[in-house]
């Protein structure tokens, strides 16, 4: 028994009561719920039609009628933000789901079969990794035109290497452990070993990576929209709004850019806090 193991004491159970002792996690959770509500029910919650021009003054400050003010075309910023939450949130979710699924599949196959399967897929992964995600997205846009679809697909591919490397390393580590050899000697089938033992061992790490990856995906997609290559006006995707509001900054009307920007930052902050907790849990889950 090592000194470090003695120091750890009993393994903590991540029960609800522990979460209650963690106010940061609670705050992050509340924020996430709020954002999800916005994403799902935005159009229902919006007080005004987000695309209707001149419902208020041009570039007006926050007021009782317009809680977030109005943009340079007189549209209500709050309504636009609420409606824009959907694409801003679900697009990254799509990216993370796709990349985690594909990445895990490739990595498990790589680790399980080894040999040329591993060699070829590792090389493929490295090729994808060599092209920065933003560049893949830009490439996709120049092929298929602007909009969210091309960047989502491109980023899904671009994020595969991150997931795949992590999972492959963990899978190889796990497969080297004696209990896997014991299962083989027992006569347990390959499929069963893979799905009953290996995949559950990998899930915590994949989950942790996905949570953090969601934050990155959100930032990347918003950046692409900011560049004008993703969601297109008059859609009120947050990245588009931030870009459109840039000229207004200099005339003293920062709301158009600032509110969506704040929402992006707050969401990513909450996701990161969540991700850190999930990562800690994931590291303890294997013991």
């Amino acid at each position, binding site marked *: 028994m090592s000194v470090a193991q003695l120091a750890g004491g009993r393994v903590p159970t991540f029960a609800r009561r522990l979460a209650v002792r963690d106010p940061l996690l609670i705050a992050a959770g509340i924020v996430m719920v709020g954002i999800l509500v916005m994403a799902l029910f935005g159009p229902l919650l919006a007080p005004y039609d987000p695309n209707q021009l001149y419902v208020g003054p041009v570039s007006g400050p926050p007021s009782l009628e317009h809680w977030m003010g109005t943009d340079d075309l007189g549209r209500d910023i709050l309504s636009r933000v609420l409606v824009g939450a959907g694409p801003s949130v679900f697009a990254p979710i799509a990216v993370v789901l796709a990349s985690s699924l594909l990445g895990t599949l490739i990595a498990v196959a790589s680790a399980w079969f080894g040999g040329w399967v591993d060699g070829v897929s590792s090389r493929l992964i490295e090729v994808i990794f060599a092209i920065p995600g933003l560049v893949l997205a830009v490439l996709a846009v*120049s092929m298929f035109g602007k909009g969210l679809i091309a960047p989502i697909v491109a980023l899904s591919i671009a994020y595969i290497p991150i997931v795949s490397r992590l999972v492959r390393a963990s899978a190889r580590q796990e497969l080297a452990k004696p209990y896997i050899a014991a299962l083989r000697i027992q006569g347990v089938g390959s499929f069963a070993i893979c799905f009953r033992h290996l995949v559950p061992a990998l899930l915590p790490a994949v989950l942790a990576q996905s949570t953090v990856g969601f934050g990155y995906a959100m930032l990347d997609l918003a950046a692409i929209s900011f560049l004008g290559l993703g969601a297109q006006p008059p859609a009120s995707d947050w990245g588009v709004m931030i870009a459109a509001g840039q000229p207004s900054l200099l005339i003293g009307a*920062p709301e158009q850019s600032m509110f969506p920007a704040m929402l992006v930052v707050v969401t990513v*902050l909450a996701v990161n806090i969540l991700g850190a907790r999930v990562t800690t849990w994931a590291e303890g889950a294997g013991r």
Partner: protein
Amino acid sequence: MNASVARQLLGKLGGLLLTLFLSSIVIFSAVLLTPGDPVVALAGGVRPTPEMIQAIKVEHHLDQPIWVQYLYWIGGVLTGDLGTSFVYKTPVVELIGPRFGITLLLVLYTIVLIAIFGIGSGILAATRGRRTDRAVLVATSFGVALPTFVVAILLIWVFGRVLGWFPVYGAGEGLVDSLYHLTLPAISLSVLYIAYLSRITRGAVVGQLHSEHVDTARVRGIPRGRTFRRHVFLNASPQILAISGATVAGLFAASAIAEQAFGIGGLGSLLTEAAARKDLPVVQVISLLLVILFVVLNAAADVAIALIDPDSVKPRRNA
């Protein structure tokens, strides 16, 4: 570095070259997957006559098999003929040339900022006690949530509207003026990466600080400064170097955002405009450039790591 390590390194570099080759194929194939007829795009918006179609096909080798087209393209890249822009009808080289320097300056400026503040704050967090560690942790937690475009608009608002300390538009003339103009863009690019590098550095340094060989050095009475340099930081540096290749390559790509926000006419903004207009040749060349950069930087990092830790290059025994 002895012969076997050198041999392993060469093997790794060979692998990187293979990756570069395969990536170039991927980039090239973008042309194939694009919906629509490239002939029409090359004709530039004018409905082409059959003679024009034929002429375009011959000029751009479109009647040849794919792999021949690829060879022409790669050959062109290697000899400096980077193709012709769909949109501008001028050689891509002329479009890229002047812009490359500006982007390079911006990225170098950013790298300096990232190196100083990222590594510096990471070391401070690891070595100066709980309070500093907490403070840096909070700062980096915010930092990783502040992408370039958010910092950019913040800075534009603060410095463009409120304080007038730095210019918020354009890239300036001459070195000093350029640096002055590029300060805000560099800051906006660097915040995220500073936070990221800070965490990596902190993790690597803390890992070494708690390692047994550092304990041994302390017990033997080796003075603190020497211990830190030769045992802690030296051993932590491979981890930091390992991520530097991908980070810098990502920086070049991310500069597009800063250039867009601050109206800088660099490589990144060219990339954005070209993509918006589906100007494939330009996008392809810039993409290829970035991949080359990634490969070169990774190779340099691998060499540096091998110099510090030759054993990392050797594969493990199987017995």
